[in-house]
């Protein structure tokens, strides 16, 4: 039989097949999450064209390919549009189906755009501290900071994607070169290091006397990579003046002198600066009497915005986020014995799409199914009038 593309792409058989594959994908991804963690699973299964399913439990692995989320999503959208142009002319009595499918399309688009435009970061604030930046917990940056006059600083932030063995970063008068880069590592004092550890040693700074070894990246959800780089500072036209061990395991910066000025550098979670600051006045965490079940968490904060002159208090608690500056701040967690609060900071310009979609599909389904019900009742009354 000749392959007729339009008939193929608009057929209900294709819809059912694609939806069936979607179920398989979702189920397999759920099971795999136990081992791989949600971020890895999202990348491998839902944002891929082909997903590889390990069907052998245990140490031996045997993968079979199944359509990935991106492929299925695109084919479903094509199928939807083709089916509508083939079968559903824009008529009133098709309105229900059109509304339902448009709503679903809107939701799919919403998720795609959230993936592209959305951004999630964290703000970890201690009581009494004022913070004007959020951090990305899963990404680091290598920063080289030059203190200037008036207490200001010039910060050169190198994103993680550019950190590699041998990378060079000229900074005006000297170059910071990465001798070795470890996306995830273990750092131990020299005396405890085994043969698995690298022989490279730092000659300056906090890393003196420590050894590093490479580790595979963390996939379990609540564990973070310990990212490390062994860097040399090389003045222009000269030899390395020292080797430092930089890592997000170290709190605080490490100092050095170059080009006749003091500098500091470190590896830290990637920051996103805001034109305003948040000060944590008080974090409270009530438990139900005699239990450790949380009754509420709330953070009393102050918003300081030099641009608009704002200086006001607000309360962020569960199910009650702060929407400010195009961002939304959610009460996400806490630590340090209830003195540190953690906010989830989300930017999602298409946040309203799921709400609209839900309303459209819900109303559409009610409309179409009510029509069915009315017809069914009418048919029944015609066959046997109620006694």
């Amino acid at each position, binding site marked *: 039989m000749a392959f007729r593309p339009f008939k193929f792409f608009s057929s209900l058989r294709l819809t059912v097949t694609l939806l069936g594959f979607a179920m398989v994908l979702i189920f397999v991804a759920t099971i795999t999450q136990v081992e791989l963690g949600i971020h890895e699973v999202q990348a491998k299964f839902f944002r891929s064209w082909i997903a590889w399913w390990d069907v052998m439990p245990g140490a031996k692995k045997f993968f079979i390919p199944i359509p990935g989320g991106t492929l299925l999503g695109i084919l479903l959208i094509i199928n939807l549009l083709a089916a509508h142009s083939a079968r559903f002319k824009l008529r009133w009595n098709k309105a229900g189906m059109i509304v339902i499918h448009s709503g679903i399309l809107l939701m799919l688009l919403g998720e795609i755009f959230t993936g592209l435009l959305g951004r999630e970061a964290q703000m970890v604030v201690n009581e009494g501290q004022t913070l004007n930046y959020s951090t990305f917990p899963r990404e680091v940056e290598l920063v080289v900071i030059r203190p200037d006059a008036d207490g200001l600083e010039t910060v050169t932030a190198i994103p993680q994607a550019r950190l590699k063995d041998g990378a060079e970063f000229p900074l005006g008068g000297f170059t910071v070169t990465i001798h070795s880069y470890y996306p995830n590592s273990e750092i131990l004092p020299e005396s405890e290091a085994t043969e698995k550890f690298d022989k490279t040693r730092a000659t300056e700074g906090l890393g003196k006397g420590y050894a590093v070894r490479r580790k595979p990246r963390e996939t379990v959800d609540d564990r973070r990579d310990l990212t490390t780089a062994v860097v040399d500072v090389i003045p222009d036209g000269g030899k390395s003046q020292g080797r430092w061990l930089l890592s997000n395991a170290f709190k605080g910066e490490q100092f050095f002198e170059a080009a006749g000025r003091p500098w500091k550098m470190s590896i830290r979670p990637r920051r996103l600066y805001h034109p305003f600051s948040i000060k944590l006045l008080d974090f409270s965490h009530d438990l139900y*009497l005699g239990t450790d079940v949380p009754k509420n968490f709330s953070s009393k904060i102050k918003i300081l915005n030099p641009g608009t002159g704002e200086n006001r208090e607000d309360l962020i608690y569960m199910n009650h*986020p702060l929407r400010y500056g195009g961002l939304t701040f*959610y009460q996400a967690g806490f630590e340090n014995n209830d003195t540190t609060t953690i906010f989830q900071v989300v930017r999602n310009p298409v946040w309203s799409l799921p709400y609209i979609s839900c309303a459209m599909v819900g109303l559409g389904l009610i409309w179409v199914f009510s029509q069915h019900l009315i017809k069914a009742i009418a048919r029944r009354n015609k066959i046997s009038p109620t006694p």
Partner: protein
Amino acid sequence: MSILRKTTAWLIPALCLLFIASAVIKATRSSTGLDFKNFGMLPVVSNGRVQPLDSLARNALLSIHGKQGVPGDDAPATPAAWLAELNFNPALADTRKIFPIHHDDLLGLTKLTRDEEKSYSYSQLLPAFPALQPEARRIGATDSKTWSPYENALMLLTRNLTRYNQLKHALALPGQAHLESEFTLFLTEIGAALAESDKQTRGERFNESTMDNASSRVRIVLDWATMTEVYTTPSGNGADGWRKLPDSLTDSVEKGALHPATLAYSRLGDAYRAKDSTAFNSALKVYRAWLLENRPDSLRKSSAETLFNAIAPFYLSMVLYVLAFLCAIFSWLWLEATLRQAAFRVLLIGFTLHTLGLLTRMMLEGRPPVTNLYSSAIFIGWGAIILSSVLELFHRNAIGTAVASVVGFTTLLIAHHLSLSGDTLEMMRAVLDTNFWLATHVVVITLGYASTFLAGTIAIVYLIRRVYGKIPQSTASSLRGMVYGVICFATLASFVGTVLGGIWADQSWGRFWGWDPKENGALLIVIWNAIILHARWGGMVRERGMMVMAVFGNIVTSWSWFGTNMLGIGLHSYGFTDAAFFWLSIFMISQVLVMALGLIRERGPMVPPDPVELPG
């Protein structure tokens, strides 16, 4: 219909009402002798909420023993009576065989011999503590997901023994026979010691031994406070203004007089030991009067909850659902109209009890109907019965009644098993503390579960009936109409419910969809229901195929309801129990077998295709 048949159709439901009436009377009857009924109604705070002693006792017994009754000929008749015995006569309570041990290795560790009832008493287990404690410490340090059945059993036993011990110290101090006089003595001695201490501060001569005496007493009371987690004495304001019995004793020193609650419990204990029912009941009456004046809300709620516990409406419903099912089944063989109507009426009576139970729980918790796994089971049954009743009114062939009673009974049975693991009226953790989303997302998605299960159950009726020969046209068309209609509803409810869940997540932590296992499970239900409808509209399946697919919907829904909780990851992880996994697997296998029945073709001439309703 003849008079006799009409009467029978009303007689059977009338007998059910009598049955219920007798159960209610039995539950509300005052007890002779020691008034354990009112004792059970006394409010305390435990597990973060105000609850009656009756609930405290029942939940403990369910958790420890798996049943609400205590074995033994002379055993306390009610859970409240058992709690009284535990606190006021612990030596006797320790002989009650309420700790089951099924695992042979665990039994070996305790060096006990296999008992007929497989249950052992606290005093039998006491010598095994030196063997149990180091094991518990060792296992407790490891990840609970890796525990073997032996380790699980040991940790469960240890947890129950700890709970038992804590309850023992809730209302009395074991070993103290005359608490009221001890308490009063405590007040005077500490008072005297404080006076001596003032003398010391002022530089006057003071009596050292008075102070030493007092400080050793204080230490006993402070130790006592660490041994219980029950807050018995209302003081101060609000839900947090409750104190443990030993702490309230210490508080009393300042006021110079015992708090009425402290006094009441000490008197109750003394009266119990002296077998003096007059003294016991009068102490109770005095305290109740005080509560009525100072904490009327707590007393009222506790009384309502105790009554609810005693009547146990869900168990009564279960009995009625079985009766309704039997009447419905028999109506297909004999006395069709009579038994069909009787069945439907019995179902409605059961359903009324089910509804009253649900409403009472809502009132006690101050929450929408579904707040945890237990209440989801109750509500799934409730929702399915409503839908089936509508179907029954529409089709009038007892299928709706039969299916309703099966789903109702099964979900209440599941709920009962879920209640064994803890307090079903537990407080909501912070992120769930929002009545709006509990009322919208949770209710709608639970209705989605209920309707998918309902469609699957009707399909099971179809597939099993088919084994016995070709189904008559009218029955087949009615079954087909039911399954199709319910799946349409299921699609609506599961879609809207799932998206509302996403919107809640967006309001809570800024992410509409996180691919959490529970979210994925709900999405699978939506997609499967959509697949059934699209396959039908596309003519890819006919009547029989749709039924087989509807049964698969049961597998998908049970995965989403229970399977996703067992993975140990994600936001809805409640841990893995061997029993739950076992029953889930059995259920899924049974559904596969029913589906296989459906794949057997009929012999005979080809059946003409049935009318397919296309949308729009």
